[in-house]
């Protein structure tokens, strides 16, 4: 059981590879390096949102406000841009601080007011929608932040900047989860909050960190999405809510908390993007395409996602 559990990320990776190879043979363009690279670029946004989501889910919560935070950060960037800030660094830091702050507020509601994470983050998403109506379409200026533009489109050495950012962040998140005390506390909190608390884990601080990290990751993801799209808009974050949760669960992290790894979310994100790409090139009615999509997800899940037996 343990060995099987441990290899869930591996299984998901294998599934991705098999899908790529099969699809590559079926359609030569699909398996070309630029296309694979493009899919990785798309996956990097889901992957970053999924990183925060993984941390939160492992810590026994769930973050339903990720979509709104991603959108918020794309809309807020122009508002935080000043003319003296020629490198755009201040704006970028400002956006990251803002998104982290939103995450921390989630954490406060959950740890101090004891509001259920689903309710707190859903309410936060609603709250942010109201804020977005105020902010959007107002004084927005065209994106000319050099850092964000570079992140979204540069390909140093033929490798996309956003993928590199993703790789670096993945490394950090993996280290955080599996090699730091804080990471261990996330697992403890998710596995059994009561036992964790009686064993001296500071539940409030740990909860706060988890949601803060999720906010930060959403901010980063928002910057990437903005750079790749050249333009932010209200609703740009919408696809990432279900995608991040799906990537987390496809990667073998238990939605009930306490078990999992970001190492599974990585192939999970790539798998989602890949299936979406596959379905796009299939010529079928929209209804049929949805059916195919669902069936593929379910089928691939059967290969990689079975839970351990009860007895």
């Amino acid at each position, binding site marked *: 059981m343990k060995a099987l559990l441990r290899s869930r990320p591996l299984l998901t990776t294998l599934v991705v590879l098999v899908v790529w190879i099969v699809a590559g043979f079926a359609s030569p363009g699909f398996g070309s390096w630029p296309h694979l690279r493009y899919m990785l670029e798309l996956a990097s946004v889901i992957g970053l949102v999924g990183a925060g989501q993984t941390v939160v889910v492992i810590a026994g919560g769930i973050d339903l406000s990720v979509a709104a935070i991603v959108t918020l950060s794309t809309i807020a960037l122009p508002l935080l841009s000043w003319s003296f800030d020629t490198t755009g660094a201040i704006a970028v830091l400002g956006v990251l601080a803002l998104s982290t702050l939103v995450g921390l507020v989630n954490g406060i509601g959950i740890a101090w*007011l004891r509001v259920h994470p689903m309710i707190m983050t859903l309410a936060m998403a609603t*709250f942010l*929608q*109201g804020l977005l109506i105020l902010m959007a379409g107002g004084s927005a200026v065209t994106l000319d932040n050099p850092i964000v533009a570079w992140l979204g489109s540069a390909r140093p050495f033929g490798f996309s900047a956003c993928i590199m950012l993703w790789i670096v962040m993945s490394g950090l998140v993996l280290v955080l989860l599996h090699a730091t005390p804080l990471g261990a506390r996330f697992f403890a909190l998710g596995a059994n909050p009561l036992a964790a608390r009686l064993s001296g884990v500071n539940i409030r601080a740990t909860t706060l960190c988890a949601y803060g990290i999720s906010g930060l990751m959403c901010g980063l993801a928002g910057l990437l999405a903005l750079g790749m799209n050249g333009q932010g808009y209200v609703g740009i974050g919408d696809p990432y809510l279900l995608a991040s949760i799906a990537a987390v669960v496809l990667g073998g992290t238990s939605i009930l908390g306490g078990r999992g790894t970001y190492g599974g979310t990585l192939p999970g994100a790539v798998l989602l993007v890949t299936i979406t790409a596959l379905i796009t090139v299939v010529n079928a*009615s929209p209804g049929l395409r949805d059916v195919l999509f*669902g069936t593929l997800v379910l089928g691939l899940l059967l290969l990689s996602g079975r*839970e351990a037996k009860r007895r």
Partner: protein
Amino acid sequence: MMPSLYWQIQWRRNRRLTPLYGVVLLLLVVYGWLFPGLFSRAGLAHFTQSWFPLALVAMAQAILMLTGGISLAVGSLVSLGAVVAATTMGATGSLVSMLLVLAAGLATGAASGAIVALLRLPAIIVTLAGSFIIGGLALIILPRPGGMILPWLSAVLAGNNPTVLLGLLILLVLGWKFYLATPGGIALYAAGENPVAAYRSGIAVEATVIAAFAISGMLCTLAGLFVAAQTGSGDPVIGTTFTLNSIAAVVLGGVGFLGGEGTMRGALAGSLLLTVMINVMFFLGMPPVAQYIAQGIIIVVAVALPHLLGRRLAP
């Protein structure tokens, strides 16, 4: 005389929700005060109609969450129910059509349940995939809004008279109460909270989960049927927003994410809160920005109230 064991148990389960009931009641009073027409026949009918589909999907979601599951396919199932009703009613008549709707929900629900329970896949992702499959089916059956519902059915369910709808709601709640008081109902709680204990106590855990999914699917398509009747037609994407709203209602209502904890009353109160809040904000003349912000705050406050009041619940 001491109240009987049954009522004592019920009372204990309810006590934790008093703050939520309080908030809901307060909002209802405010609504009635802002709009006295609420207490007319038609006013009550219209309000009940707004609430009814959300109440049904909240029940559907609650049943699953009590067994430790969750469904992201609620919205698609509502759409499917609406579409099946609107496309078949003309040809087959209302009775057959309604039976078809219920059968569609039962079958899809039971199938999802079987996948979750027997193949041991996480409910959240199975139902996410299911939402695409079911939503796709709805689109295939009816690609563009249309179809029709027999006018008499619309009039009975969604006319100016609340009797039938309220009756139906009461019937469902009574049905649920009856089910809960059967061994199968308690099995739902046990299988959700502690499947090992349930198994050791001789409960058929898998069957219980599949039954929960089936009932839940049927409630969703029933909601779809009602939406079709309310609108007089079918729309293949009408249900989309019900998924998140059903979860919000249920969690607001104190149903735990880990299974076995919570009550149907709570879930219904949660759905009522989400419904009445919209009307109250309208009659207070709030602009959309304020509506969003107020909605976020009301939801958090309704849940945080026990803590804010200094009352301590077991961790």
